[in-house]
């Protein structure tokens, strides 16, 4: 057979971290002019493989060839110089610098050593407008924009360099539908220009929509490489998790009819809102009820969750929790009232990287007990072991620093932290974002079983199917106001979609 030469060929890649075998004998090929999906569960080694390819981690064993020449990378800088560019899952830009500066950082247009600001700003605007159809003020600091826009800017930065390979690590996890479409248009264009694109995602739809080839990893090992058209979805999923997948299909779609008929009201918020963030709205959640919040990115889902938890202050509110009236002005108060909150942004708002898994788990419980009543070391270890087992946290080592865990496992640690406080109301903001299907199903199942035991849950997710599957009632937000609430039979993809679209 006369196959074309691959643009990139990685063979026999190994990478070991303290206590974790991240990659074992992995091969990976990428051809010019293709979009190649890199698939696998959390901790399968996708991110590690990418970091090896981009020089973030040094190569321990194995060979990387670009255009048939062996390359040895020591830094992301070197990778960029030879044309390998990456956009990471979590945005890796400087929030204090302007958008234009972020795009041009390190390669500003200069004359006699002086930066040509005007040219740079114009270049950045033009680049964003032409290639991403994004019209924004590039002189404003990056943090003024939403995560989605920051992600597009990160992509723009990668596009700007003359690159051979573009790696997109979970680029779509915080983008809404139109933004995804725009991104795909850009990807197709780049593909035709002969770029090799590595695309890491958890959205199966997107894999089948855009990619040509799929490589599957599992537990740091290569499962195989397939042409996308030759691999049915169910095959893909079962290869990723290494077993036939019934977990998701088996999830019961619970109706609230019998279960919640005479359940008391757990949380009642009237007129909760904040000017410029979200219009005042009313929301109630019954005991043992799962309320889903649906809406596009920027519709005010996260903002509402933050107000309920007291992370931001509501302008005016009347609150009652489990019968007693309260106003919540700080997370601490919310926790004392029995509310728990898993934030959307794990890395910056959830985990404390420097601490171990054990310390991260006990943190919230210890905070409610105050500093004097410390939990004994022995008890801490018992708790950590218990939750590691219950939530299947991997690696099962309570003394591991949490930063060494994969995203899904970090999420489980945060969940453990809150479950330990035995909350009455659990607010989950995108609990399955950036998490593989197996862990996703585990978390959904967990939520359902918690609700059955009487815990109220506010479930926020940008994945419509997920919201529909787990929720007893769905509240739909659009343009920062609540537009509709539906329950039972009313909940369907069609209805929710319509409410979101406002048609």
């Amino acid at each position, binding site marked *: 057979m006369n196959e074309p030469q691959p643009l990139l060929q990685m063979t026999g890649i190994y990478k070991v971290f303290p206590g974790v075998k991240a990659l074992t004998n992995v091969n990976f090929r990428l051809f010019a002019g293709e979009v190649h999906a890199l698939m696998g569960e959390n901790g399968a080694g996708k991110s590690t493989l990418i970091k090896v390819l981009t020089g973030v981690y040094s190569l321990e064993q194995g060979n990387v060839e670009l255009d048939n020449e062996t390359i040895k990378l020591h830094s992301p800088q070197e990778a960029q110089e030879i044309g390998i560019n990456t956009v990471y899952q979590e945005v890796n830009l400087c929030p204090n610098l302007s958008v234009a500066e972020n795009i041009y950082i390190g390669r500003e247009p200069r004359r006699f050593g002086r930066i040509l600001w005007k040219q740079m700003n114009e270049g950045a605007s033009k680049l964003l407008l032409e290639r991403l159809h994004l019209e924004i003020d590039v002189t404003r600091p990056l943090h003024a924009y939403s995560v989605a826009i920051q992600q597009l800017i990160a992509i723009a930065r990668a596009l700007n360099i003359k690159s051979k390979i573009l790696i997109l690590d979970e680029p779509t996890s915080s983008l809404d539908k139109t933004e995804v479409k725009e991104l795909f248009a850009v990807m197709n264009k780049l593909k035709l220009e002969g770029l090799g694109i590595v695309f890491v995602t958890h959205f199966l739809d997107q894999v089948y929509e855009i990619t040509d080839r799929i490589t599957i990893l599992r537990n740091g090992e290569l499962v195989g490489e397939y042409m996308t058209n030759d691999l049915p979805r169910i095959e893909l999923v079962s290869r990723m998790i290494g077993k036939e997948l019934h977990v998701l299909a088996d999830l019961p779609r619970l109706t609230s009819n019998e279960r919640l008929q005479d359940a008391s009201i757990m949380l009642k918020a009237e007129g909760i809102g904040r000017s410029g963030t979200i219009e005042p709205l009313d929301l109630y959640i019954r005991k043992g009820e799962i309320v889903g919040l649906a809406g596009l990115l920027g519709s005010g889902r996260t903002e509402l969750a933050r107000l309920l*938890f007291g*992370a931001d202050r509501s302008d005016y509110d009347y609150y009652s929790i489990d019968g007693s009236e309260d106003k919540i002005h700080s*997370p*601490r108060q919310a*926790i004392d009232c029995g509310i728990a*909150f898993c*934030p959307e942004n794990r890395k*910056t*708002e*959830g*985990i*404390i*990287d*420097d*601490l171990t898994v054990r*310390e991260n788990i*006990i*943190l*919230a419980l*210890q*905070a*409610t*007990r*105050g*500093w*004097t*009543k*410390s*939990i004994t070391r022995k008890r801490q270890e018992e708790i950590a072991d218990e939750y590691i087992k219950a939530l299947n946290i991997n690696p099962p080592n309570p003394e591991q620093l949490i930063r060494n865990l994969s995203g899904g496992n970090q999420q489980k640690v945060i969940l453990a*932290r809150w479950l330990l406080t035995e909350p009455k109301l659990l607010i989950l903001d995108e609990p399955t974002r950036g998490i593989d299907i197996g862990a996703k199903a585990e978390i959904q199942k967990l939520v359902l079983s918690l609700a059955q035991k009487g815990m109220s849950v506010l479930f926020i997710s940008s994945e419509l199917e997920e919201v529909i599957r787990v929720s007893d009632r769905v509240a739909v937000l659009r343009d920062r106001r609540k537009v509709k609430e539906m329950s039972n039979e009313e909940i369907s993809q069609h209805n929710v979609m319509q409410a979101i679209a406002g048609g």
Partner: protein
Amino acid sequence: MLKHHLFWPLTVLFALLLFNFLYSPDFFSIQIRDGHLYGSLIDILYYGTPLILVSLGMTLVIATKGIDLSVGSVMAISGTMACLIISKGDNQSLLSLVLIAVGVSLVLALILGLWNGLLVSVIGIQPIIATLILMVAGRGIAQLIADGQIITLSSTTYKYIGSGALLMLPFSIFITLAVLIIASMLTRKTALGLFIESVGGNPTASRLAGIRARAVMLAVYMFCGLCAGIAGLIVTSNVSSADGNNAGLWYELDAILAVVIGGTSLNGGRFYLTGTLIGALIIQTLTTTIYMVGVSPETTLVVKAFVVLIVCLIQSESFRKTFSQLWASRKYRTGEEVKRHA
């Protein structure tokens, strides 16, 4: 063992002590004179106490990703305050008078710490700027308290704090030891240590986990102020006089250095009190060594800076790696050369 956080600080300390021993073999000799222990080692501990105290406070502040530049000024203020009160008394050696003076100065030091804490945690000024205010203003406050004079005392009671002896050892060593033990107990036996590391590691996440980050910060800056206050008492008591301009001068820099050498990162998070203790001892030993070797006073600081640079390089993991790689490749090359000749 190489991985242990105390390994490199201890190695450096032992290397310094070894150098001293080789340079002057009677460095380790300890004699008993007038019922007191005398010797270079005792001196290092004795003169090191103010620095150790200040560094302990600084460790907790740095663990919250902060820094306290005002410790030197707080030392001057608390020392001057104590001396002023005592100097007003008819009988300067009266125990109750000295106790009142000590009490008032320490409360004052706590208030100054609270001030720093408020600026940082409530108003939200960056720590380096917030504490710079008191660093600069503090010297002026000390001058105001003393009315621009150097206050000299003749209080034997007050002098005991800095130069008295207990169980044949300088009394200040016991004060320092007590603070170290209390600080260790507070941070390791209660959950305070976890909260400090958590706030330093990720303030946003800590707040969302229900930790009162502000209260933790206030407590930490107050503790740092208190430590500096005690150090100020020791320094002024030692010389029985308070000089608002010079008491505690440049202590902040040595303290920050001691913390960093002790293994606590300026990025906040994990902190090591014993590491800091060793760090402070390294700096004090270094100072003593430089005096002993007889470096001329003009160049003392240059020598000190040079040694500190080496210490920091040894502690840097990436430097050690690069260095050992260079070393390995050098050996390899010489090996080749030998072959060629043969």
